[in-house]
């Protein structure tokens, strides 16, 4: 059993379909910690001590958010700025997160083919996510391939949401094939890399 914490960050939950469906599906998964970041810090006053204690208590950190301007909503950045402190997450003595896993669950408005050198976004999704990947690396964490839904505004959310719940369960029960999860480009609901059940 891995201790999984699921951070959910969406500033406009009322108007979200996919992320709300994901959150509903995730709420059925038992034995994991759930944090609605915008509900907990509506005034951006992130409590560094509390968040660091939470990180220490978990092995797998999942951040779920919609991609805003090739990055996360601003509260996630604020959270990173404050919580991943020097001496805690990186730098001298900063090895408290070593060996943990960071995984992003991302929805994009643009379609899959836009995120390619010849697409209109000009870069792959993973290129836009390199700051997160390097953040994980500097903190000595593994960065698993992100769980992605492209064209989220036009796609029915049910499959993606159900897949998200199965992903969280797999992480919790150590049933995810980490080798494949770490090397894949992205993970979608139909390419979840589970350990083959015997």
């Amino acid at each position, binding site marked *: 059993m891995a201790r999984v914490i699921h951070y959910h960050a969406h500033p406009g939950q009322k108007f979200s379909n996919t992320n709300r469906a994901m959150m509903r599906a995730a709420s059925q998964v038992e034995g994991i910690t759930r944090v609605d970041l915008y509900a907990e810090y509506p005034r951006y006053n992130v409590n560094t001590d509390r968040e660091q204690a939470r990180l220490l208590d978990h092995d797998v950190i999942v951040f779920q958010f919609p991609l805003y301007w090739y990055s996360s909503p601003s509260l996630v950045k604020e959270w990173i700025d404050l919580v991943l402190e020097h001496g805690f997450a990186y730098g*001298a003595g900063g090895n408290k997160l070593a060996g943990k896993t960071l995984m992003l669950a991302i929805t994009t408005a643009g379609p899959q083919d836009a995120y390619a050198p010849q697409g209109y976004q000009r870069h792959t999704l993973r290129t836009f996510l390199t700051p997160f990947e390097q953040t994980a690396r500097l903190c000595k964490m593994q960065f698993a391939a992100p769980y992605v839904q492209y064209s989220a505004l036009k796609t029915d959310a049910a499959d993606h949401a159900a897949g998200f719940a199965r992903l969280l369960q797999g992480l919790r029960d150590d049933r995810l094939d980490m080798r494949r999860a770490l090397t894949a480009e992205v993970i979608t609901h139909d390419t979840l890399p589970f350990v083959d059940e015997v």
Partner: protein
Amino acid sequence: MTGFLMLAFLFLVAGVVAVPIATRLGLGSVLGYLIAGIVISPLLSGLGVDVISIQHFAEFGVVMMLFLVGLELEPKLLWAMRAKLLGLGGLQVLLTTLAVMGAAMALGQSWTIALAIGLVLALSSTAIVLQTLNEKGLMKSDGGQSSFAVLLFQDIAVIPILALIPLLALPDLTSTAAEHAAGSDHGTSFSLVDGLNGWQTALVTIAAIAAVGLGGAYLTRPVFRFIATARLRELFTATALMFVVGIALLMSMVGLSPALGTFLAGVVLANSEYRHELESDIDPFRGLLLGLFFMTVGASINFALLFENFGTILGLTVGLIAIKAAVLLILARVFKLADGDRWLFGLGMAQAGEFGFVLLSFVVANHVLPTAIADRLLLVVALSMMLTPALFIFYERVILPRYDREQEQEAGEIEANGQVIIAGHGRFGGIINRMLLSAGYQTTVLDFSAAQMDMLRSYGVRAFFGDATRPDLLHAAGIAEAKVLVIAIDDKDQATALARYVRDTYPHVHTVARAHDRIHVYALYAAGCRDIIRETFDSSVRAGRSVYEAMGMHPFEAEQLVRAFTDDDRATLVELAPLFDPDIPHHENAPFRERSKALMAERQAQLVARGEAFRIRTNRDWSPPTAKDVAAEEKSS
């Protein structure tokens, strides 16, 4: 004097003992009162008490109950009910009368007697049904609303029935009872319509109804404002009683049902800001009188007669309930009530009612029925009323569980548009009210200032006059169904008492309390409140931030400092609150005092050490690694 006290004591003891036991056993208060009445009936007959005259007096409880029902019913709602009222109510009275009449004729009665019996037994018991529906919170359900519509129609129907009955008089009974004369009514009675002809009577009657309507609409407000200047609670009660008694008197004087008159007055006042005040003033009287009424029903059972004819009377009662329930169930199906509600309506209204008692004495006085039949019918009416609580229990335990799912969904809906009650609409509560209204929430405002009321009402706020610290007023304002209570009244101690009361009585209500100062925060915390806002703290902190900025501090640093100050202040509050004891002055409370001193010393030490108490903590966030950190890192990589 002692006789009166003895009687009052007897009734009170019986009620106080029997009702809690009955409610504990899940039987409901009505059955408790009825049983209490039966138990004391030998004592009453031993004392030679005239139970029937007490019953007539206690019937005033029904009048008060209809007044209260009217208060809950805005004219708009009444108008919306018209189809149910006339269709459902009219058909119920008509069909039940015919069915009972048919049964009576089948048992060998002549058609006039059978019709009279039908009319007497068609009516249901407003007292029992409404009391039980309210107690079980079923009044707002479809079944409850339909029951109410029918009861209201029956109340109106009493008037034509009273007019019809003398026409059925039996010639042989009339001659033997000439000495009975007209004044079979108890005591002296005044009438405004004696000796008037038809159209004059009609004119006087219409004038009386108009007087009630206009008086309710235009007279109550100035009267209550005048009373409010005296600031005496009992004067409100006296005024409310005066209104109800006055209306009932006027209606009786023109020959209308006093219950109907007060109901109309209630409807007229349903939109008034004094509605909840009236409700909470009248309600205790209603409760006591109805309790007394139920006890007299229990006590008036003639056991000698009952045991003599036990089989017959029980058979008649069960037959009556079966007929009435059948008619009701058929009507419920025609009027498309949901399954659960249909049974509530059918079983709940299947008894004969208190109007039956009234009509029976009237029928006998008019020589329509021989006394022997009337005495037996009296038993049937009483017995059917006694069986009603059992039918309600049957509905609750057997029928309702089958339709549980529907009920759950309904409860969820109510939850979704839960209400907010704001106690005190001054500078503090007023802003909260504006915020809630602008976000589309429904609020109920309680305030003890008549001037404030006028202002609020002119802006369309649901505002009611009254002292929010009164439990009964709070109850009338709907605290039981509310989701949030905002305590924004000025008086510190009253605010604390209110917080404690709501916490104890309505634990599901989230209370947001306005605190005067730190000590008041602790007092509210001790009272169980966990959402406490100091009235001047936030504005003071903002003023402090303005000073920081005016002194040249960078606005973002000022904001950080303000947040740190606020967090720190809150932390000390949270730490000290559990140590506070409202019964000990805080300077005599040793643990509180010691901890408070220690915390102050801590802050002082930081201040001395760094010159600024909070910057150490704020500077931690966003601070770059120090030179030492960087050197250590370079070495390690």
